[in-house]
């Protein structure tokens, strides 16, 4: 079967990635998949105030997710965030947390800011991919990279990396999945839509395949920044 944009079911949109695109930040990453573009910047580890947020045993990770006002396919997005952007900040944070080691930075914070200038489905996944590049670029100790992609359904077929039309189809499902690069542990799993457990397994396996490809793109972006 062919998809709306001509891709095969397990084919992802075109990707590109860069590291170090925001010189002022301690680390930064850029990730584009299809028409979705994510920037991520890392500041820190740095002082954390107010004090009650501090953890004396380890540094904390804090992620903020934001769509630029002109980024959406439809109407202008009101600046300042909403419930959706709050939740996405949280789930991105939780997908990255298992790989970062912040025990060397008690009481401090590592801030990750994800900004989307242009969106076309899969923004949280693109945000995670950009953020992982930014964290590595910032020299944060992390045992692995993390990448994310979504899977879903079109008709009876399980498909990988939904675009906007596939994501907004009436009958379908959207399952964003993040995994660590080496061990393929799942650090993000959400789903909306209806699907059998069997199809879900297929979807996760498709994501696993896609994530391997993304990890290679992330690695290349990081190595290119420092390549001789």
């Amino acid at each position, binding site marked *: 079967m062919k998809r709306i944009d001509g891709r095969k079911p397990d084919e992802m949109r075109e990707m590109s990635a860069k590291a170090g695109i925001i010189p002022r930040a301690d680390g930064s990453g850029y990730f584009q998949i299809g028409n979705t573009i994510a920037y991520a910047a890392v500041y820190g580890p740095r002082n954390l105030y107010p004090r009650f947020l501090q953890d004396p045993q380890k540094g904390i990770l804090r992620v903020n997710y934001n769509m630029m*006002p002109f980024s959406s396919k439809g109407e202008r997005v009101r600046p*300042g965030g909403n419930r959706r952007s709050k939740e996405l900040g949280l789930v991105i944070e939780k997908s990255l947390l298992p790989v970062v080691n912040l025990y060397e930075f008690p009481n401090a914070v590592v801030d990750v800011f994800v900004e989307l200038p242009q969106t076309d489905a899969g923004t949280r996944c693109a945000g995670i991919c950009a953020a992982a590049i930014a964290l590595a670029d910032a020299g944060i100790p992390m045992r692995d990279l993390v990448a994310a992609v979504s899977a879903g359904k079109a008709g009876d077929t399980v498909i990988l990396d939904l675009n906007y039309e596939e994501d907004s189809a009436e009958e379908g499902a959207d399952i964003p999945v993040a995994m660590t690069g080496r061990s393929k542990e799942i650090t993000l799993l959400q789903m909306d839509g209806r699907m059998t457990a069997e199809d879900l397994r297929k979807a996760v396996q498709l994501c696993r395949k896609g994530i391997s490809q993304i990890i290679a793109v992330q690695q290349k972006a990081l190595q290119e920044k420092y390549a001789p």
Partner: protein
Amino acid sequence: MNKELHAHMIKFLERGSRYDGRKPLEYRDILVEYGIVKNAEGSARVKIGETEVITGVKLVVDKPYPDTPEQGSLMVGAEFLPIANPDFEVGPPGIAAVELARVVDRGIRESKAIDVKKLCITAQEKVWTVIVDICTVNDAGNLFDVSALSAIAALQSTKFPEYADGKIQYGKLTDTPLPLADVPIEVTVFKIGKSYIVDPTPDEEKVYDARLTVAISRDGRLCALQKGGDVALSEDDIFAMIDIAAEKQHELREKLEG
């Protein structure tokens, strides 16, 4: 910065040089890219040195204000995104972002670049509102000039979306560009000690005494001014700074298309 280091920088400037090797009135490399955001009706990315700003334009249909029933309107907002600078925080625009947005807004508005009468669809009922959103990506100094240039470039690239039966078809752009009657350019001149500079670095922005932003229309007329900073300026200062801006605006203008 402490006294000794401040004095050191001033000494440098008085000899006509800056820490990064530039002359006082020299801009860093200027880069303008049009149409970088597919989902906006107009957009541009401007880089001056390492400072980078993305501006997008969205068009919406609104009811006109009752006192101007046949005019559309312009809105300019600036988001100092926290990716750009360690001191920018998440949250509503601070006073610096508000000032910047208003200064850019005035340059566009007062040069009459946008003919608001041409934005009328049905008098008293429907008019276009042009919303310009300035987003900082990397702040390496001089956000004022970079933002103003990206705003006008984004407007230059703006096309109307299809509009029928009271509904906008976002994503389907017509060939009709947003009519621009003028192209205002803003140049900010800074005074540090006795010296004038343009295009400051973050270190220079920490120590400047006063600044003057000058918006200049295509025919060379002044269309908006904003004096900033903690120190007063003399009349001579003001006119010297305006002269500098009038001279430097050509450098920025030639980076734009048309």
